[in-house]
């Protein structure tokens, strides 16, 4: 009997918490699927009378170019930073030279800085190399500031690969790159998945670098969405639908590749 009450309270609390996390999703979808005529702040909490796509179509028309920018940005920066991180992690775990641990610590420090502290020089730098305002400047930025976290994840992974495997390959005549290519890389596929999902999610969702470094033509979707929300002209229902579109890619990654996402989260736990 006592156990029954305890279980009841347990489920009550779990469901109440779930309601809290899902409440914004409810408002987002209930608003998104209303027709233009139905939309009214006073009926915000009511279900739509049917499924209308007006809001999503209007939002998509506004945000499609920015979704494309985000996609190019994210794919390019994710691939480049994963490759860099994998090479760094390999060298720093299996080819330790004097000072390798110090270098690793010095690299890691880059994860912990608030980016405000490098933002002004970064803008000046991008202006000097004529990448200010452009998408490639943002790609470069994400690749560079992604080095610490990608290196960390790969180094921790490679550190777990038995050194005997490296030595065996070396006896067979493989050099530094040979060992990487034939031994480490095939083993590291799961790490690549973790790192790429982590980078994809962080870069897609990033705002500070994007809003500071890109011009309107190259705005990723986060900047464009914030701009929609700040304008007095765009209706709030279209903003809601736009928020849904901007969240969709990373949400899909979370739904379908959740366990890899979680592993990246735990590895990046220190990053915040």
């Amino acid at each position: 009997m006592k156990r029954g009450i305890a279980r009841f309270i347990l489920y009550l609390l779990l469901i109440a918490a779930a309601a809290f996390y899902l409440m914004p999703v409810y408002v987002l979808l209930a608003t998104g699927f209303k027709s233009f005529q139905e939309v009214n702040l006073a009926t915000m909490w009511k279900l739509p009378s049917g499924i209308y796509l007006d809001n999503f179509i209007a939002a998509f028309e506004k945000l499609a170019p920015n979704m494309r920018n985000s996609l190019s940005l994210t794919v390019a920066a994710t691939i480049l930073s994963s490759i860099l991180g994998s090479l760094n992690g390999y060298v720093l775990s299996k080819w330790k030279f004097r000072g390798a641990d110090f270098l690793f610590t010095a690299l890691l420090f880059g994860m912990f800085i608030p980016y405000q502290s490098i933002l002004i020089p970064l803008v000046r730098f991008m202006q000097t190399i004529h990448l200010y305002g452009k998408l490639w400047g943002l790609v470069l930025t994400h690749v560079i500031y992604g080095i610490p976290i990608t290196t960390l994840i790969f180094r921790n992974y490679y550190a777990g690969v038995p050194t005997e495997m490296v030595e065996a390959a070396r006896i067979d005549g493989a050099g530094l790159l040979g060992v990487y290519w034939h031994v480490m890389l095939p083993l590291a596929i799961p790490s690549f998945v973790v790192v790429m999902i982590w980078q994809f999610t962080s870069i897609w969702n990033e705002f500070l670098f994007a809003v500071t470094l890109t011009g309107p033509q190259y705005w990723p979707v986060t900047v464009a969405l914030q701009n929609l929300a700040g304008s007095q002209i765009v209706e709030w229902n279209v903003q809601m639908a736009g928020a849904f579109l901007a969240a969709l890619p990373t949400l899909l990654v979370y739904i379908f590749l959740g366990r890899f996402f979680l592993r990246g989260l735990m590895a990046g736990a220190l990053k915040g």
Partner: protein
Amino acid sequence: MRIRKERLLAITLISPSVLAIAIFVYGFILWTARASVSAWKGLLPDYTFVGFSNFIDLFRSPRFQIDLRNTGIFTVLFLAACLSIGLLLAVLLDQRPRGEGLFRNIYLFPMAISFIVTGVVWRWLLNPATSIERLSGLNLLFHQVGLDFLISKWYTHPTLGIVAIVIPATWQMSGFTMALYLAGLRSIPDELREAARVDGASEWQIYHHIILPMLKPVTLSAVIILGHISLKIFDLVIAITQEGGKGYSADVPALNMWYTAFRALRFGQGAAIAIIILLTVAVLVVPYLIYTFRTEAEQ
């Protein structure tokens, strides 16, 4: 011979990354520090040395005083909310209820989306209109269910505006805290609990005397991660308030820094704010890093 050549290759492989971090992290921080003691206003840099006058002006400005107060309030409440909700949910899920995976996924999904998306949605939930005919968002919900006393000006409240930002921030990050605690709970061997049960300890005693003390390292990392986020929070505040609320009611240093540097073009002053943010984060993170590396070295 071969080894020496390969060592050279190894160093060559990581040197671009090392060089990049040396310049873009360490070099740029020094550059920002230099700018923070300069007279730089306007598009063209001006490195005329002005001493600490940017910092002095900053601490004298009412806006920055509000920022510091807001960051303090935000950090304390955000940490308290995330840690308590996260721990509670983790303990609940640790009872292995039916649908555990589903609940966990629901609690954690906000982690996968951008603070901007969160901000855009919560901006409407926290709509500050308080006159009955213009109510919307949570205020409207409160009115409709008869809880009118909860109706609030949210982020435009003159003294408590920043507290409203804690709600969406907690919505986004408490699930993550839950995941940290749950991983910690699951790493505690079952034998330990069994042994305590055999000795006649109640479930509550087991949590109080055995499990919670073992979760201290998790709490420490959670404090570092969440504190790190709260000291530099920017996206969420700009998405909800645009310019910091009413009379900077929800303004924070990162927002002030961005508008000061990139809108008002007062780069010297902006750099000074950036250095202060960096120092506050360092006060939090550096002792933790030293502690972590020391324990690692000891092992």
